[in-house]
């Protein structure tokens, strides 16, 4: 037995040495062959290419490469796609009329307004079973249609003529233009969808494309797929890379080996590999529109209703250490709920939302253990708990990284006098169902933006929101959020101010305790240019360049 143990240990060390030796080879890597192909690692397979059914980022990226909706992000700017311009609403923000260009599907059919009408109606129709149908709420009758109370034909979208699409909203949606770049609003070719029925989107034969690339030889759950330049794309001239080759690689060490052997041009790093490669040539980290945070259950644990207690919890966490030492994957400390680099002041596009709310954010989401202890004591006194001991359960996922993160938080929070933290790391689905049932004291959770606007986050924390699992409730915050959605919805400036005011309240109150903005650490060959994530989470591959 002893011999076996030594042997296992020896082999493990040998294996680790091998991995480390591999990591050290980055300097010797050569540029990829200039064959007009960019080889990109992806973390998972495409679940579906049907824009009515897809829910994940992999499908969204393949969708963004091969299809096009009304707009497309270029950097942080929204640019016309199938629409000829970024339009302004009329009728008090209720009507959007999009002029469409002469674009073609890869089968030669013209892309018409009716293709949008067809796709959108199909998505909201309950029989399609779209999990993203809710994102259409706000378009006239969408909610009633998804609830099965009205037919899909009553959706507030119509083809005025082949090249004019008109959308009618129930209430103004100030971020409606941003939504139009997302894959769930893409058009569909009715002829193709009808021809393939349920098979539509399950393999490349069942698809036609109106985007920069065409998906070829993809058959359902394949680990690899190719996208070749679509000559029928209206902006084909701007597309310079002839082929994109995506490869699913799940093991980070394998990914690094493939990158260093020039089999892949861009890889995502995680865990120890990300930490090791930080600072080396080709390393870069991209931030996602996603925030990780702690919710405290105010319904079951009345002590969390005290502001100073929440502030003390927030001030005891060293987010720099958490992101650098524990995560090491390019994530950045968050002192606020809204991700950085996602939304910008409508009157001055250079100003980030987080920059404008930084004064209130940095006050209670910095690391200050001394102040934390002071506020904790004051909070205990205010709630009549001085000298009492508390044992809270911190609920989190059961992945390795989530466990490490939980241990870090446990260590930080137990520095508050009388505080004991018990960890409960469970599978993702269990965490969700326990959160929904209110079966937790504190929970580590996160939110990925559906669209790049602060309101997508802020609405989660209004008193009656289903996603407000901690049940933090503040009427001032609710009023600001509500005003931004109603009275001020048509005034970008006032609306922006409402959201900033709401965020200031949330920051001051620490209704949720922000932890970090999730990052993606990459290794990218120097020959790859313009490969950057856009505000809606996808890469714009029209702009991708391969330097020979």
């Amino acid at each position, binding site marked *: 037995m002893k*011999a*076996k143990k030594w*042997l*296992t240990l020896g*082999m*493990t060390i*040998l*294996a680790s040495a*091998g*991995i480390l*030796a*591999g990591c050290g080879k980055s300097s010797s890597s050569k540029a990829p062959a200039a064959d007009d192909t960019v080889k990109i690692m992806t973390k998972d*397979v495409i*679940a*579906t290419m*049907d824009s009515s*059914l*897809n*829910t994940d980022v992999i499908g969204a990226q393949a969708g963004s490469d091969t299809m096009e909706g009304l707009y497309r992000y270029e950097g942080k700017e929204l640019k016309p796609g199938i629409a000829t311009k970024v339009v302004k609403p009329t009728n008090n923000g209720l009507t959007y009329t999009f002029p469409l260009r002469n674009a073609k599907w890869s089968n030669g059919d013209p892309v018409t307004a009716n293709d949008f009408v067809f796709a959108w109606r199909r998505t909201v129709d*309950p*029989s399609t*079973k779209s*999990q*993203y*149908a*809710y994102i259409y709420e706000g378009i006239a009758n969408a909610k009633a249609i*998804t*609830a*099965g109370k009205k037919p899909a034909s009553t959706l507030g979208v119509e083809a005025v003529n082949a090249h004019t699409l008109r959308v009618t909203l129930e209430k103004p949606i100030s971020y409606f233009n941003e939504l139009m770049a997302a894959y769930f609003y893409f058009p569909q070719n009715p002829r193709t969808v009808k021809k393939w029925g*349920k*098979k539509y*989107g*399950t393999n490349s034969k069942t698809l036609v494309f109106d985007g920069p690339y065409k998906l070829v030889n993809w*058959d*359902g*759950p*394949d*680990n*690899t797929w190719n996208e070749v330049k679509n000559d029928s794309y209206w902006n084909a001239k701007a597309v310079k890379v002839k082929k994109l080759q995506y*490869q*699913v*690689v*799940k*093991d980070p*060490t*394998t990914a690094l*080996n*493939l990158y*260093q*052997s020039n*089999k892949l041009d861009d890889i995502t790093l995680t865990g120890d590999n990300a930490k090791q490669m930080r600072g080396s040539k080709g390393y870069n980290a991209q931030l996602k529109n996603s925030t990780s945070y702690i919710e405290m259950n105010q319904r079951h644990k009345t002590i969390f209703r005290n502001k100073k207690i929440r502030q003390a919890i927030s001030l005891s966490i060293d987010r720099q250490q958490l992101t650098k030492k524990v995560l090491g994957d390019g994530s950045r400390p968050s002192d606020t709920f809204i991700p950085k680099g996602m939304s910008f002041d409508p009157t001055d596009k250079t100003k980030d939302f987080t920059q404008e709310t930084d004064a209130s954010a940095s006050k209670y989401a910095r690391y200050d253990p001394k102040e934390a202890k002071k506020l904790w004591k004051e909070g205990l006194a205010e709630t009549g708990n001085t000298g009492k001991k508390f044992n809270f359960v911190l609920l989190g996922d059961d992945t390795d990284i989530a466990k490490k993160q939980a241990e870090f938080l446990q260590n930080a929070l137990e520095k508050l006098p009388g505080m004991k933290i018990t960890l409960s790391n469970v*599978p*993702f*689905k*269990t965490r*969700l*169902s326990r959160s929904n049932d209110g079966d937790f004291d504190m929970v580590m959770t996160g939110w990925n933006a*559906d669209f790049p606007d602060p309101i997508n986050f802020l609405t989660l924390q209004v008193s009656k929101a*289903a*996603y407000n699992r901690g049940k933090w409730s503040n009427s001032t915050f609710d009023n600001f959020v509500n005003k931004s959605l109603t009275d001020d919805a048509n005034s970008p400036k006032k609306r922006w101010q409402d959201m900033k005011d709401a965020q200031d309240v949330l920051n001051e109150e620490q209704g949720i305790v922000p932890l970090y903005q999730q990052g993606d650490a990459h290794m990218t060959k120097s020959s790859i240019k313009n490969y950057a994530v856009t505000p809606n989470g996808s890469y714009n591959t029209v702009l991708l360049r391969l330097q020979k």
Partner: protein
Amino acid sequence: MGKYILKRLGYMIITLFLVASITFFMMKLMPGTPFSNQDKLSAAQLKIMNEQYGLNKPIWQQYLIYLGNMLHGHFGTSFQFNNQPVLQLIVSRLKPSLLIGAQAMVIGSLLGILLGAVAAVNKNNWVDSLATFVSILGISVPSFVLAVLLQFFLAFKWNIFPIALWTDWKSSILPSLALAVSPLAQTARFMRTEMVDVLNSDYIELSKAKGNTRWQTVVKHTLRNSLIPVITILGPLTANILTGSLVVENIFSIPGIGEQFVKSIMTNDYPTIMGLTIFYALLFMIMLLITDILYSVIDPRIRIAGKENN
């Protein structure tokens, strides 16, 4: 023989029914829904989705519907892969797993039998010690550690095989080798123990007395008689390896079935969980049946239909 196989097939159907039933009810006890963005769906939206998929019906009704569909050969469509039939999903993912699994079994069991036999024949000398060392090494070193080592030295450093990526047959060699280590080690250990026993039997002495050479004795009498216990372990081992290894598949980026099973459980993909469980159970039972049939082929003294004995 035919009667025996028919009887076994009958048992298999009953077992499959039990496996399917137990899995179905246990699966429904798992928390969560099969909707990938369940955390973003409100209670009202969730209710609509459940109605659309018939998940709002009482569990016994869902069970009867599933059984009915199964009898008609319909295993439903996957939740992870919208609208992909589960059967098609299993078939497409099975091919790579079967290939590397089968190669691993052939390499592992043949080398294992050889190694065990050589060790037994050379009992207590250095050849035996070396063989024992190799088999202990094989049992002690997890396949994923070997996979990383093989990948690093044979692919990354010396560039003999592809690092990963499922392109051609060459891509299957390293994962097969990594997977082969376990059957190799286990077969070698069983083979050695059994063969040492057989070598001490009276009929071996008789064979020697008849003037057969050492190798004639080993090949004619010992090898064949030692294979029985080896075959006993090979059945389940084959079923195990053919159904894929999540870790080895991940290391070599193989689009196999191992990962699908784990992922289907993690995502509450009910139809895929059911389809794969039934498939695994079926494969396991078939392997056991083949094992039993092989017994009688290798050792005619064993009659699988016991009543035929005198």
